[in-house]
């Protein structure tokens, strides 16, 4: 066609003319326009081959049922090679989703029926794509056979998941375990749970009616917003360090209770901690000292710190997460400071978010983007795509991270998390006993990582209404860490 065009141009040029024929210009513009039209085809091809697999995997795309007529939904595997979810079809061609581990993984895998959630939702289209040999694929289609969908290999470890579920015992609550240097989620448990296998209408009605107020359908790890309690002192301490260069000189005399403005603050269990510096205040989790610290803080800057730590924003995770909230700002009243500084008051955090903050400290201040899917394989076991760990944000400097690590080590060595003391893996962490109403009952919190000097795993544990963090959450975290380091 190019030849054709230029030929015409030449012919014209040879004919004597009165004025400019315009043909040369036409040819120039035609090349330009043809290139633009060709670029449409090129971009279209690029979109289909490169971009579309990411795009169509959206919860807004309503086409999964159409694809399931043609493709046998892929399976989900744990990192240790166990099948977590699979679709089996009988001779009649009706297929059914099975979950060999029953309720153990339900909150992270999500469910397939009654409105997809979790990985079943976020990986929906990836399991409905068949990356097998295209010739075999077409042959299967022509024979009316379903093509096998791609399989999902998660970062979840069945041993750790079991240990986490056992650690929670009969308490409601959540455990999140992640690798600080990659962002891999190793375990995520939320209790109470339900069995997604063969979820019938009757069971579903009971679950949604929720007469006991258990909220079994709620993934507490990502959707439960709890007062952070003393685990929040990590951020208060960090803000104090940023505002006061000579923070190591800080001193306060704890008598077990104190009044700040109009607000009365007392230490947990009515203990008085005597003369404390910042480190001792942290490892003893001294409320009055931290309220005292809070009074010195700049509210605007404190807010900036928490915003940069991903409070009040949506976490970039593959499935639905509640936002953690930190409402203090420049305009807030002084009297809100003492409560906020010790993690009470209006602050709320999800166990997942707390795990991410802890992992960032363990990773020298850099938060890695949490992920659940390690790789996708086709039915032949060939890797289609693999997740490359990526940075989410830099939350603090390396120096700040090391200082906080030092404090968190002391919490285990000589503070509130002493039941972790003496292990081979040398953990670091922070406990919390978060009051959630006026009854005096507390949620037991623990966030930490191990080994303290070369962290491999970070955990975030909450047991609802259990009591103090040191007594309940630390032993639970220990079970998970013990399991993790058992074979290593």
């Amino acid at each position, binding site marked *: 066609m190019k*030849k054709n065009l230029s030929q015409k141009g030449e012919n014209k040029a040879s004919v004597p003319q009165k004025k400019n024929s315009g043909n040369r210009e036409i040819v120039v513009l035609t090349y330009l326009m043809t290139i633009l039209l060709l670029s449409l085809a090129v971009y279209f091809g690029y979109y*289909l081959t490169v971009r579309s697999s990411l795009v169509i995997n959206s919860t807004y795309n309503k086409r999964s049922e159409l694809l399931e007529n043609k493709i046998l939904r892929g399976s989900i595997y744990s990192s240790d090679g166990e099948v977590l979810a699979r679709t089996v079809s009988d001779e009649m061609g009706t297929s059914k989703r099975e979950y060999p581990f029953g309720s153990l993984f339900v909150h992270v895998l999500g469910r397939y029926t009654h409105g997809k959630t979790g990985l079943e939702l976020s990986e929906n289209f990836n399991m409905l794509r068949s990356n097998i040999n295209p010739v075999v694929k077409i042959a299967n289609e*022509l024979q009316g056979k379903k093509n096998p969908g791609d399989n999902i290999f998660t970062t979840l470890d069945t041993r750790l998941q079991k240990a986490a579920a056992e650690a929670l015992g009969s308490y409601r609550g959540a455990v999140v375990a992640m690798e600080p240097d990659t962002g891999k989620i190793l375990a995520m448990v939320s209790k109470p749970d339900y069995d997604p296998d063969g979820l019938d209408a009757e069971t579903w009605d009971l679950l949604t009616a929720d007469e006991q107020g258990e909220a079994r359908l709620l993934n507490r790890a990502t959707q439960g917003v709890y007062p952070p309690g003393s685990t929040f002192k990590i951020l208060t301490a960090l803000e104090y360090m940023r505002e006061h260069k000579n923070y190591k000189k800080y001193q306060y005399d704890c008598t077990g209770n104190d009044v700040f403005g109009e607000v009365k603050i007392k230490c947990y269990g009515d203990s008085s901690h005597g003369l404390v510096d910042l480190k001792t205040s942290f490892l003893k989790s001294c409320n009055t000292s931290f309220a005292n610290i809070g009074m010195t803080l700049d509210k605007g800057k404190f807010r900036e710190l928490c915003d940069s730590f991903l409070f009040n924003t949506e976490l970039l995770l593959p499935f639905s997460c509640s936002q953690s909230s930190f409402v203090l700002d420049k305009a807030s009243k002084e009297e809100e400071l003492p409560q906020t500084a010790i993690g009470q008051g209006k602050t709320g955090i999800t166990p997942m978010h707390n795990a991410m903050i802890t992992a960032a400290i363990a990773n020298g201040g850099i938060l890695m983007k949490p992920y659940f899917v390690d790789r996708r394989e086709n039915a032949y076991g060939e890797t289609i795509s693999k997740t490359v760990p990526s940075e989410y944000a830099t939350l603090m400097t390396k120096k700040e991270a090391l200082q906080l690590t030092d404090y968190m080590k002391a919490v285990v060595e000589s503070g509130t998390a002493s039941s972790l003391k003496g292990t081979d893996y040398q953990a670091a962490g922070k406990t919390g006993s978060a009051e959630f109403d006026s009854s005096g009952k507390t949620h037991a919190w623990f966030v930490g990582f191990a080994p303290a000097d070369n962290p491999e795993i970070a955990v975030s544990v909450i047991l609802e209404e259990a009591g103090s963090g040191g007594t309940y959450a630390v032993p639970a975290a220990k079970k998970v860490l013990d399991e993790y380091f058992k074979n290593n």
Partner: protein
Amino acid sequence: MLNLLVEISKYILIINILLYTLYGFLIFGYKNKKKQNRGFLKQRAFIITIHFIGYFILFLQQKDFMLIFLYLGEVILFIVTIISYQFVYRNLSRLILNHMLMLLMISFVMLARLSVSLAFKQFCFAASALIISLVIPFFIEHFHQLENLGWLYCFLGIGLLVFVAVFGDEKYGAKNWISVGNFFSIQPSEFVKILYAFGAAALLSRAERFKDIIKISIFAAVPVLVLVLSKDLGSALIYFVMYICMLYIATGKFAYFGLSLGMGCIASCVAYRLFSHVRVRVLAWRDPFAYIDNQGYQIAQSLFAIGTGGWFGMGLSGGLPGSIPVRESDFIFSVIAEELGGFFAVCLIFIYISAFIMFINISLKMKKSFYKLTAFGLSVQFFAQIFLNIGGVIKFIPSTGVTLPLLSYGGSSVVSTIILFNIIQGMYVLDQIGVDAVEEKSKPKGRK
């Protein structure tokens, strides 16, 4: 069994359109008349095959007897068109005719898949346009005043657009519709486009001095402004591009082209700052998924459809076009890509390219400046419409809300495009007779 047929048909349709498209380009190289003839006949065979398979699958799925009548009506329309056009348009370009029928046929099949009543209406529009077009060659041959009426086209066009901008109705965010009675509405800007090409060609072909160029350019800018104000950005862009290309051809001065293009860019930046509806389009284009609940919804749904369909498509009736807004008109390309597949859709782009190149060839051959400019202007218009529509639905460029020539549903769109095809076709015929010969013959006071 039905699923199996749909699956098989998917591949047969793709093979047919692939071969059809291939001939659309091979024919350019054929010198031998016989070989050319065979090529055109093969193309028609592919059209007939795709048409039949399409309706066969649709009938098996919908079991609607209206489909059979529609199918037969369309077959008759195609046969009558091919025969009558060979008489009326002596030695017409069969490539252009084939492309026109192919695109219309795909539009019929896809609309019948979406809604039989839409397909029926489209059929009526197309049939009337094809009949009206029978007088076009007569017009071009016998009305020699066509090129003297520049200012008439200009004021008629501007008048119509202003009338619509004031009294028109708003549809899909643009105020460019006029209701006639209760159930009939037309989009005058689709027709004014053709008038605009004629006006610009008539005026520019006479322009001698710089002063004339300035005067014409000012009048050419008026319709563009009116369209921007009535929020019909797509049409405004088409008019603008058409004018600056024609200006370049008429004057041969690249500086004018560059200058007006630069001014166009500045104007778009100003429009971006001034009008929120322009910003919204750009926003939705840059990240449709961030605004998926409102501005980005259309484009996101379009991308889902295309992406889920993949290269081979979901099969006719196998997709979920119901989720795509304006599926029968602005987003028909996504519906086709979803069900008939990416390969099919790419072939459509190449069929458009083939038609476009043939249009350009015709304008290159025209000797008279007015005809050359008109043919070229209409080709640019055809190009711009394709580029804006397909570019918009695949997120290559921001979506501007223009229809896809011959494929989109819509009376104004399909009628004006058929007329556009046939004006170019008429000029091709004229060229073969020889413009000068015609002029000589018809001069009443010529020596005889």
